[in-house]
């Protein structure tokens, strides 16, 4: 697969200058996810009102930038808004490039549209989002009905 669209400037920026990185206290729910094929790991912490979302992890530019974008998009939103964004991001990633990304909803997240064409990298982009979903559930916040994704 050619690189067109994979390493967007936005993604590289988020990778080099991540937003909100580092685990912080207090929190109400935490989840640790691993991508067993490549060893990427992420821990996400969430407060019950989503006013605090913190994370830390090791991984490739895609998974790390995705975590940074997640932080930017979801922190401080209410459950309904977070759920809508979460749903839109997961849908975009599973679209194989067939879905038009909505910048209104996804903000910098639209830069990941190109990732959807790289099946091996979709997992990277989704890793923080799946960990967030679990952490949120543990904090008592149900984030949408996004289809389950295989690690």
């Amino acid at each position, binding site marked *: 697969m050619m690189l067109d669209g994979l390493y967007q400037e936005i993604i590289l920026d988020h990778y080099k200058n991540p937003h909100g990185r580092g685990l912080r206290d207090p929190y109400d729910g935490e989840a640790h996810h*691993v991508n067993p094929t490549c060893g990427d790991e992420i821990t996400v912490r969430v407060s019950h009102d989503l006013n605090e979302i913190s994370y830390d992890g090791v991984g490739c530019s895609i998974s790390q930038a995705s975590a940074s974008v997640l932080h930017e998009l979801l922190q401080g939103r209410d459950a309904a808004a977070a759920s809508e964004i979460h749903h839109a991001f997961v849908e975009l990633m599973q679209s194989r490039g067939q879905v038009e990304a909505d910048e209104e909803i996804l903000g910098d997240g639209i830069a990941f549209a190109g990732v959807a064409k790289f099946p*091996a990298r979709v997992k990277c982009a989704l890793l923080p989002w799946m960990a967030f979903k679990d952490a949120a559930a543990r904090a008592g916040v149900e984030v949408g009905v996004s289809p389950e994704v295989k*690690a």
Partner: protein
Amino acid sequence: MSFDVERVRKDFPIFEREVNGHPLVYLDSANTSQKPVQVLDVMRAHQERYNGNVSRSVHTLGTESTEAYEGARARIATFIGAASPDEVVFTKNSTEAINLVAHSLGQMLRLGPGDEVVISEMEHHSNLVPWQLLCERTGATLRWFGITDDGRLDEADLDSLVNERTKIVSLVHMSNVLGTINDVSRIAARARSFGALVMLDCSQSVPHLPIDVATLGADLIAFTGHKMLGPTGIGVLWGRLDLLAQMPPFLAGGSMIETVTMGGTTFAAPPARFEAGTPPITEAIGLGAAVDYLTGLGMEAIHQHEQDITRYALDALTSVPGVRIFGPATVEGRGGTVSFDVDGVHPHDVGQILDALGVEVRVGHHCARPVCSRFSVPAMTRASFYLYTTTAEIDALARGLDQVRKVFG
């Protein structure tokens, strides 16, 4: 007949060859089937163009291989009516699938003295010996259904055989010797009422009958690629996803792990949990192509063709003097596998003389020695049919048996 067997045969290169100066008459498909060019071409193309290891690479070859491998899984899932591709575990053959279940369930259920595992006298050794060994390892007791004189599962003892001690019932769906297709609904219902798990050995049924696991009544089934137009080296375990998710791994190694340290390991979700090491990649892709081929013809049409051939064969064999057929005498509840005895001639000799005429049948105990013992013979001769079998081939078999009687007359 709407089923065009002559057109089907053109897809199988092997039918161009002769055996001992005669056209090949291949009546041993229950042992292993022949392979159409469509399957061979897909495998060859994969090996020449897309070969890479699966689930391990971000590179293009690896991604293409993974998509082909997982695509095959998805098509096989659809073929048997599975709820999700994740219910399809690739093994090397049916035998590995059954051993996997015997080991994993034994551990999951903490099988021990007082527990019972129920099979039947009709089992292939591959659905018999793994359970014997499981019972030896754990102290559980092995029990079994008998066979009636006309070759059907004897359910007379159902109430005592399946009881509150029963943990696993594992039965052959279609007998590789008698051809019997077992309706296991009563047994499965009773097993379920005691919370026992039900496995079916579908090695002979999935290749020949439309199978829908959603309605079959089993928790787990096993089948094998080489008997259904696919290559050797590939088999399938299907299981309900919620059950597979509870089962501990069997073979351990690369690709079935979540995370590994020297001190301990956690495991991936199914199906990966049960696919340790590099899987039979090209073989799975070949089985996917085989399933496409079968689906193209339609399993209902294939089954109908085999019923016609079997009816013809039962007639033909019945009219050869000295031939005794084991198993159901009519096509009702039976598939296209017919075992028989030629009075006074050992099956080895029957098979040898038939082979001299290009007619390939199997002789011996067919990896189901207890079935032979049940009918008090050391061995049997077996003719087994598939979508490419013709009535002319049955005629050749009948003529061959006349020859057998001449030599040993």
